């Protein structure tokens, strides 16, 4: 049963991530008084890109390796997260540190591809991506730490659900606030879509990618966004818990959808910040997250 859950995880992430992306696009369009593309458009986009020829514009192994590496790392994340409040066969063998490690591996793959493409704009995008990773990933790690401290285990179940499993504490509230702001940076939406900023650095790290390679990166981005949105719904919204696997699956996906709606609304009502402005906000988030960890360790 817990082996089946691994496959359910992978399938749900692969298939639903583009749908959530479509929902975000639709909501953004409505805010902008536009009709917007159909919600299934991201599937079409992926299919179209996957059907194109590969263009190996940088001609080196790192450039070719980066998209599958990023995609593989996010697949691994999808396979092991406790979706539906159930720690599955894979999840039981790893802990929160593995999760952080795998998510970071995806980001590092993007950096690898960007730097290997030897494009000025990719280089600027990579340097911005690096700053964002260094400054924002700690918030993720600390979210899991708060769960681990409150759940008294580094296991995935405790780290993800621990923050609110036994009701809200002060540390949960503080962490929730920090995570909510960082979420916009995790999913690279305005005001924190700085590394990709189309108008400045032309999609930054991804500028040299096209066709199937780019499809893998896009899919990777969508799944990554889904992981972070799900983590919010699973970690901070305890009322979504029903007790049954299928029930939790449904409520968590619904919660994820709502988180995506919020992301789209914030994204469409904010301009992009500059990296120097964003860094100041990220630094504040780390400080707040540290306070939350401290409170959790103190049992609050």
């Amino acid at each position, binding site marked *: 049963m817990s082996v089946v859950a691994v496959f359910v995880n992978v399938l749900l992430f692969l298939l639903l991530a583009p749908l959530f992306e479509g929902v975000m696009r639709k909501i953004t369009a409505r805010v902008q*008084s536009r009709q917007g593309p159909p919600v299934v458009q991201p599937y079409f986009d992926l299919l179209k890109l996957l059907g194109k020829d590969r263009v190996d514009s940088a001609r080196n192994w790192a450039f070719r390796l980066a998209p599958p590496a990023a995609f593989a790392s996010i697949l691994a994340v999808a396979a092991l997260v406790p979706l539906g409040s159930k720690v599955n066969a894979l999840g039981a063998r790893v802990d929160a540190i593995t999760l952080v490690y795998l998510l970071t591996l995806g980001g590092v793959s993007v950096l690898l591809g960007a730097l290997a493409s030897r494009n000025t704009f990719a280089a600027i995008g990579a340097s911005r991506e690096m700053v964002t990773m260094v400054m924002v990933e700690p918030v993720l790690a600390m979210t899991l730490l708060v769960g681990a401290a409150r759940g008294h285990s580094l296991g995935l179940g405790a780290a993800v659900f621990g923050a609110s499993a036994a009701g809200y504490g002060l540390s949960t509230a503080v962490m929730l606030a920090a995570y909510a702001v960082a979420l916009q940076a995790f999913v690279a939406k305005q005001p924190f*879509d700085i590394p990709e900023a189309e*108008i400045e650095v*032309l999609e930054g790290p991804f500028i040299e990618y096209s066709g199937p390679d780019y499809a893998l990166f896009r899919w990777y981005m969508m799944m990554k966004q889904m992981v972070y949105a799900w983590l919010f719904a699973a970690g901070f919204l305890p009322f979504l818990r029903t007790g049954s696997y299928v029930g939790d699956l449904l409520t968590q996906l619904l919660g994820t959808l709502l988180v995506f709606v919020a992301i789209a609304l914030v994204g469409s009502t904010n301009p*992009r*910040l500059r990296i120097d402005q964003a860094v100041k906000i990220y630094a504040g988030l780390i400080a707040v997250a540290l306070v939350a960890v401290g409170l959790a360790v103190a049992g609050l």
Partner: protein
Amino acid sequence: MNVLDRIETELRGRLGAGLERTESPGPARLFVDVERSALRAAAKALIGLGGRYMVGIGTDEIARKGTLGLIHTFAFDADHAAVVLRTAAPAADPVFDSITPDIPSAGWSEREYQDLLGMRCTGHPKPKRLILADDWPDGVYPLRKEVPHDLEPPAAEDVAYRLDEAPPGTTVVPIGPFHVSLHEPEHFAVYVDGETIKGCDYRGFMTHRGIEKLCQTQVSYNEVPFVAERICGICGSVHACCYAQAVEAAAGIRVPRRAEYIRTVMLEIERLHSHLLWLGIAGHLIGFDTVFMQAWRVREKVMWLSERITGNRKTYGMILIGGVRRDIGPEVRADIEGVLASLEKEVLTLKNAVIGDGAIHRRTKGVGYLSKEETARWSLIGPVARARGLRLDTRKDHPYAAYDDMTFDVPVVDSGDVWGTLVVRVLEIFESIAILRQALAKMPEGPLMADMPEALPPLRHAVSMVEAPRGESVHYVITGEENRPERWRVRAPTYPNLQAVPAMLLDNQFADFPIILGQIDPCFSCTDRVAVVDARSGARRVLGRAELERMSRRERGKE
């Protein structure tokens, strides 16, 4: 004493025998002919007297006098007048003193005539090619009359524009020739240290269409307004009107008052359209696409209205020499009033949303700062100047069409940054609405066209200014003998404003490049390239031509 008399007396006193002749065809214009040796002193004196440099005009007088003429124009805004400084040099020795060391915004005008007429301006700080393509042969000057308008010299291989030396410790980021924040082909080499801009070189004029040459050799007087409208997709009526006014002034044609009112209406509708379009693009440039989409939704109403009045959503085709082509009837008038009412409501919502948004403040305040003194030194115009404390508006300073009958404010702020430009342009939307309402209410009955003489008198000079949404447009016309202008020079507002962009970019963040360039609302088709340079770790990396080409993925194999 009249201001022009005062200027004339001053010039006479300073130049002595260097001043050849003066004429004043109207109350607001003074033409001064000087020896070429006195040119720089005369230009410096005019700036010292409070003049603002507008544009230089080069003329080919070889057939008639064996000379090449150089004309500099100056506006005296507070005195509602313009002074034209004319000089000439034998075609065999077309050398002038450069006035650019004293007047930086003359830099492009002088480079332009080095390229197009083969003049040489000694002492020019940057005498590089400006307009001609890099593979254009030396010694062929396309604006000279001996060169046919359709000359196509063979393309040359392996010629490239040499970018300015990058400051030490910087990296070049190439913006253009194609880049999403540029809407037309241009190349800016931006020199960056990390993310801080340390300098910039510009190579443009990639889509130079030779419109002036075309209109001086191929078409007739009344066809030019339609070509003029196509200089720019946004301020077409401005160029048509400015050209028509210059011809009218040169030939002494009086335009019927109703036609002047209709011109005012078209110019203000064009301003409404342009301000809403720019506001949308400014939103897009700082990553705020909701502002972009909403501003353009509102703008759609203006386009609908233009179609209702002229049959065209843009490029109205309303203006002819001597008047306008279509009347504004009572039904159309009701439609204009209806659209203005709904527009005013929508723009008010938009204004409150944009001006009150703290996130927009963070992205625009203190960005692209230029002091009032530097703004005046660079002869900046339009909303860019009005955001930097200069009260310049051609509609007030040099009234044309029916603006002398209109009551309106000129919003001026002194924040000196992108924020100020944004505020000025948003507030001007309301002034435009007010002007339109007044124009409709006060519009007199009468004919739409002046009685035109059989032929226009040849070789008369006139300069005309019109306030385009982005700033002042200047047209200079010398009437010709073959039912077409002998010389027609167009200066769009981007021409002076773009020259000061490197000064505005200095020490700003690379992320702000799009909005700093975007604030001047650059119209490259009106005027006609940025590379970025990295000083981190002290290593200097300048991307040369080979690397640029490799980046463009064209000749990777060859390099």
